[in-house]
């Protein structure tokens, strides 16, 4: 049986009221300010540099060390991390020929670079730096377009099995802001101006080196020893 016009009117009124309340609630959620902000130009303290010189991958006895200065929100760094690093890792780092040192160089034009670097630093506190590092680079397209990237980094932290209470405390306290700034200042001191930049044997390599070029570079600095047949 068809409802009366009055009944339909009431129904559409109720539907409209629910729609207004729903849109209002979602709008309120969307209007909340960014959850985490990591300041630049903080005062670098002793704790930020003492005993910490970047995140290292590879054995201490490796004959060659490369320091990478990179920015999590830089697209070239993302390509390098996702396409070149797996080969470099298999071919050079895991074979003990190369030690890789990662240092943050957050560019000012990238609003989430420092939050990303800080998220990775907080993961480092729980021994999961490289897991978080990789997830952040893998998901760059996802979070770089977000209004607030911090919740996405938190999702990565959860997926990586971090203790979220500790992670949240670390992020909201911004406790590694000085470490990131120290890394940035070091990069400026050695002459880094773009990302990714590699520092190898005191020489800077700017631009996009691929895994083959890096292998040749390592070969030239420490020729691979082969057993005679």
């Amino acid at each position, binding site marked *: 049986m068809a409802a009366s016009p009055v009944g339909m009117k009431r129904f559409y009124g109720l539907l409209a009221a629910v729609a207004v309340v729903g849109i209002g609630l979602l709008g309120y959620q*969307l209007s909340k300010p960014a959850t985490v902000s990591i300041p630049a130009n903080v005062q670098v303290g002793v704790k930020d540099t003492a005993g910490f010189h970047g995140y290292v991958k590879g054995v201490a006895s490796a004959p060659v060390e490369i320091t990478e200065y990179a920015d999590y929100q830089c697209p070239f760094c993302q390509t390098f991390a996702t396409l070149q690093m797996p080969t470099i890792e298999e071919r050079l780092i895991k074979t003990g020929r190369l030690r890789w040192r990662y240092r943050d160089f957050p560019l000012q034009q990238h609003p989430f670079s420092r939050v990303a670097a800080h998220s990775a630093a907080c993961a480092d506190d729980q021994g999961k730096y490289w897991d978080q590092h990789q997830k952040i680079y893998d998901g760059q397209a996802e979070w770089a377009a977000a209004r607030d990237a911090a919740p996405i980094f938190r999702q990565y932290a959860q*997926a990586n099995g971090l203790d979220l209470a500790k992670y949240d405390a670390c992020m909201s306290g911004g406790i590694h802001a000085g470490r990131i700034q120290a890394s940035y200042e070091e990069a400026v001191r050695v002459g880094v101006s773009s990302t990714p930049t590699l520092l190898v044997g005191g020489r800077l390599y700017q631009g996009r080196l691929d895994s083959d070029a890096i292998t040749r570079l390592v070969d030239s600095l420490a020729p691979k020893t082969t057993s005679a047949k």
Partner: protein
Amino acid sequence: MIYRMGAALTSLLGLFVSAYLYLYKIGRIGTLACGSGDCETVQTSPWSRFLGVDVALIGLLGYAVLLVVALLALRSSQVERRPPALLLTGLAAGGVLFTAYLTYLELFVLHAICRWCVGSAAMIVTILILGLLELRRLRAGLA
């Protein structure tokens, strides 16, 4: 008619729940309002995507389609017709099956329950029941 109205209203509620979860998933909302914290476990798990698409987005689109179908079924020219009710019930049945699969994952794979997902499950089951009641009403009317 009351069943179709109920289905439209419930679809709208489901649409907002899915929109909320999807906005969280794409980083537009900081944290989910979820007492136990299991919502984030579910939403960040590999099963929060289905065939490469966010499950919350599938829900959002599904409820949007259900809402449109329910509203069309309420037009005076359609209100006593069986096909719109059949379409609504069929879509809801598909939604219930998909929800059953997701609930299985929550209970037996993830061992985590997201309250918003439970709410959505209740809504899709409600829409299915309303669709079945509407079909029964039409059948009784035609008999």
